[in-house]
């Protein structure tokens, strides 16, 4: 799982398709460092998400992969060949953007067919490939329409379909759903997962939303300040974040953090009363730690078992439709409790907060993970 280690660029790709390798890539514009000595290997046919906040370097990475930008230093290898200086139109790349970019005066069919026509594919094959992708993207009934006659969601489907039909080696998506209505976004990301994963290309999907990365699954690459913090299956990164920074990035709302200590066989979370050290933290020696708790494990109702109890006042209750997140301050840090259901709460209302010790993550004071809570059973997920 450690990804910051150096990859061997000369090692041939494991599968017989294309692999994409970033070999010590840096991108510096002026005196701003966008990407800092990055090493990365993406296998042929893999589905990858880049997860990071706005400005973390996701778009820069995509542009470097596409060949739209050249790195300041380092090499980019595609199927073992150095393509660092190869022009974008000579790479077999498809890209989808935040904006719905289609040819306004072409029908949906022509929009999808155009990359193939340019490539000189024969008409019958074009017809077949467009038909297949149109069906996959639920566009069969709109092939004769112009983009302007479609809704935003359909327009973006057309852009996605055009990228898919090209059957490129590398399919890059830069927050493609961010400009869509909330509900549509939720539906489309479920719908997209299979066509993208089955496309055979190296798919790289950039997103700023942890929920999106988790819903899409696949190999998640956590990007922060131009560096890769961690890489692995989305749910695994979520359950074993290697550092405080990753823990906060993978999760919305982010993981709650507070300083605390272990000593005399007790654990003290922030300013709360000490409790017995839970089983998964028994190996830790006495001393100061940074403890983390996921928002959905910070409860506003006691479950009756041995818990840490915290008194707080409601800062803001955010209601998402089926969940309520209560923001409050604990020991000087912003905390959030995420609970099922809709529970309106007034600002400044006093509130009892309960944390089960078995749900606590422990980090050293430098921010590296020491112990994570186990699953209810350690068996792998279906």
């Amino acid at each position, binding site marked *: 799982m450690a990804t910051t280690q150096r990859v061997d660029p000369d090692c041939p790709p494991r599968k017989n398709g294309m692999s994409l390798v970033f070999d010590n890539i840096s991108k510096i514009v002026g005196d701003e460092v966008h990407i800092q000595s990055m090493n990365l290997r993406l296998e042929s046919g893999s589905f990858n998400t880049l997860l990071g906040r706005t400005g973390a370097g996701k778009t820069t990475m995509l542009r470097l992969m596409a060949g739209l930008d050249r790195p300041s230093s380092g090499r980019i290898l595609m199927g073992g060949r150095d393509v660092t*200086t*190869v022009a974008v139109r*000579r790479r077999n790349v498809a890209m989808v953007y935040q904006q719905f970019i289609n040819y306004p005066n072409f029908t949906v069919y022509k929009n999808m067919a155009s990359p193939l026509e340019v490539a000189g594919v024969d008409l019958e094959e074009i017809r077949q490939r467009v038909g297949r992708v149109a069906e996959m993207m639920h566009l069969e009934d709109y092939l004769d329409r112009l983009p302007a006659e479609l809704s935003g969601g359909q327009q973006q489907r057309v852009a996605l379909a055009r990228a898919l039909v090209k059957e490129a080696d590398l399919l890059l998506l830069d927050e493609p759903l961010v400009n869509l209505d909330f509900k549509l976004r939720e539906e489309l990301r479920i719908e997209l997962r299979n066509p993208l994963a089955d496309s055979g290309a190296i798919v790289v999907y950039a997103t700023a939303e942890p929920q999106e990365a988790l819903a899409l699954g696949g190999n998640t690459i956590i990007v922060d300040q131009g560096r890769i913090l961690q890489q692995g299956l989305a749910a695994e990164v979520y359950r074993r974040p290697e550092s405080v920074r990753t823990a906060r990035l993978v999760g919305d709302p982010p993981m709650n953090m507070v300083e605390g200590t272990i000593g005399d066989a007790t654990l003290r979370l922030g300013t709360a009363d000490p409790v017995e050290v839970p089983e998964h933290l028994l190996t830790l020696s006495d001393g100061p730690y940074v403890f983390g708790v996921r928002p959905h494990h910070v409860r506003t109702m006691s479950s009756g078992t041995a818990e840490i109890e915290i008194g707080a006042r409601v800062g803001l209750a955010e209601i998402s439709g089926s969940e309520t997140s209560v923001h409050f301050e604990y020991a000087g840090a912003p905390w959030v409790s995420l609970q099922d259901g809709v529970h309106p709460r007034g600002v400044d209302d006093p509130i009892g907060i309960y944390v089960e010790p078995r749900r606590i993550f422990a980090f050293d004071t430098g921010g590296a993970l020491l112990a994570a809570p186990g699953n209810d059973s350690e068996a792998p997920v279906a």
Partner: protein
Amino acid sequence: MKTENNRAWFLVLPVFALVAFSAIVPLMTVVNYSVQDIFGPDDRVFVGAEWYREILQDDRLQQGLLRQFVFSFAILLIEIPLGIAVALAMPRRGRLASLTLVVLALPLLIPWNVVGTIWQIFGRADIGLGGVLVTALGVDYNYAANPFDAWATVLVMDVWHWTSLVALLCFSGLKAIPDAYYQAAKIDGASAWAVFRFVQLPKLKNVLLIAVLLRFMDSFMIYSEPFVLTGGGPGNSTTFLSQTLARLAVGQFDLGPAAAFSLIYFLIILLFCWLFYTTMMQLGRGSQQ
């Protein structure tokens, strides 16, 4: 796969050659002429800044320059506000809008010397519709004899010819203002004047800059229309700079002074365009985000 290199700039070479041929080479020829006295193909003398000195002290140039400034500023003062007013009064959408656009564009499609001829006839007090009308109102009007009448006719002609351009530019600028701005102004209870002053005018800044630059450059170089209409007269009252220059170069074949004149002319236009540009950018600074 082919590796990228820096050879792409070869592709720009033809353009360079073309620009050099069309602009730089003739300009350098003018520079060359302006510092020499030429008697024949093999008989030329380097005279340094002599021609410049002569031209700058020349009465004709000084008066032409003055006239030119008065003319250019007068038409800017008339055409810009008038063009904005026309644009504001135009219907925004529907068939009427297209019709208005076509009608407005008509004067722009007429060749310049034809415009001069049209007005030459139109303004005649004996047979021209305009001239007859003005005379019928009791005004003693004759553009061929009276310098004031000549000036007025040239100005009106230019306004007729070119206000459409300003109006069309402003119209496109106005169309680009989102509805929300008008709606917000309504909600704020803004008067029509306030909407113009605080919504439309600031948003028109960029097209107005283009309009001012275009109209200034064009009017500063005006030649055909007054030449056809008045021939620069009566006297020299409507002889603008370009006419003075043409007389010098073509009429008298004084190539050296004419070349020096052209360069000074060119520099003046450049200077004023820069002035307009920086002032207007300064005025609207911060309004573009």
